[in-house]
């Protein structure tokens, strides 16, 4: 009964979705001529190169034009970590009984992860340092680093992700982000304003504050995702 009703509903939903998207042609150029700047996309494509000296337009949008969204987004992650901590909170007295969810891994795995971890971390750092030049950036790099930590967390029974370090990294990265924003407000009158010189396109050091913010985002995301994993892995498994 419920199933039939749901399927009827789904058919209707599907009908409306198809109907709607049949009106939005796939692959159509809705930007128009970029120099006319009829819409935001055109404006971004037309101006990013000159005004921000960032090669990756998506990065420019994510970090600068819509940097506020990104700030919100890292906040969401931060809050998810905090929320997870509160949802899966254990009292102090339970703390001793923590058991890693995996049995001790074989030494092969352990050695492998120990070798792999710096490599993965380096890759992540590379990704977010070059966020303004190539695809990738803070989120991607941060997620990659978190994957590296995941390896360590599951292969070493007692690998603590280092709460103190996580807190430091997370807080400092967040504070950097907001402080840069407030610096912009202070000096140029608008929050997150790109106050540093743009530099040359396609140089590593270019784009003003954009790479700095993206690096901060990278560290923050890495710390937050690691924090999420850490919390989840620390749950006492059900007997």
């Amino acid at each position: 009964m419920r199933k039939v009703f749901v399927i009827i509903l789904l058919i209707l939903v599907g009908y409306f979705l198809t109907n709607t998207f049949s009106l939005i042609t796939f692959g159509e150029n809705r930007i128009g001529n970029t120099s006319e700047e009829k819409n935001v996309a055109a404006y971004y494509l037309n101006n990013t190169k000159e005004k921000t000296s960032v090669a990756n337009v998506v990065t420019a949008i994510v970090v600068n034009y819509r940097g506020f969204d990104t700030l919100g987004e890292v906040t969401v992650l931060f809050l998810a970590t905090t929320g997870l901590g509160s949802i899966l909170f254990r009292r102090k007295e339970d703390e001793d009984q923590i058991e890693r969810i995996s049995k001790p891994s074989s030494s092969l795995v352990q050695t492998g992860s120990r070798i792999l971890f710096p490599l993965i971390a380096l890759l992540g750092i590379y990704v977010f340092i070059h966020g303004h030049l190539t695809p990738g950036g803070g989120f991607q790099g941060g997620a990659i680093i978190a994957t590296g930590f995941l390896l360590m967390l599951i292969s070493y029974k007692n690998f603590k992700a280092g709460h103190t370090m996580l807190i430091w990294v997370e807080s400092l990265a967040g504070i950097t982000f907001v402080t840069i924003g407030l610096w912009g407000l202070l000096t140029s009158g608008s929050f997150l304003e790109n106050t540093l010189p743009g530099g040359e396109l396609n140089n590593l050091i270019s784009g003003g504050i954009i790479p700095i913010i993206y690096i901060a985002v990278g560290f923050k995301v890495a710390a937050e995702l690691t924090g999420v994993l850490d919390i989840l892995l620390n749950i006492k498994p059900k007997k």
Partner: protein
Amino acid sequence: MYNLELQNNLITTSVYGSAIALILIGLYAVLVKKNLIKIVIGLSIIDAGIHLLFVAIGYIKGFTAPIFSPGSENLANKMVDPVPQALVLTAIVIGFATTAVALSLVIRLYKHHNTARIDQIKSLKW
């Protein structure tokens, strides 16, 4: 198969169609499956569909990625729409955060009720 229109239609169908299919399949899981984890899986499938749709509306046939790599500095007029991509980036991360919270709730519910079936977790009603 050389019919250009047919090719276009096929691509359109495969992108939009699979996105909409993902949404519907995810919805089915959320609305019918009783297992909490299945429901969360359903939610992330819906999210995936939405993300695909989002990128798809920014796609412009024959254009390149919105990156001024060396050698393509003057292709501003030939780049796909970067805005949806930026939005999807945000949406993916937010989706992940939501999924993490959802899963932690599932863990707690399981510990509390010793079941992961949504129709048995009804201590709050009316």
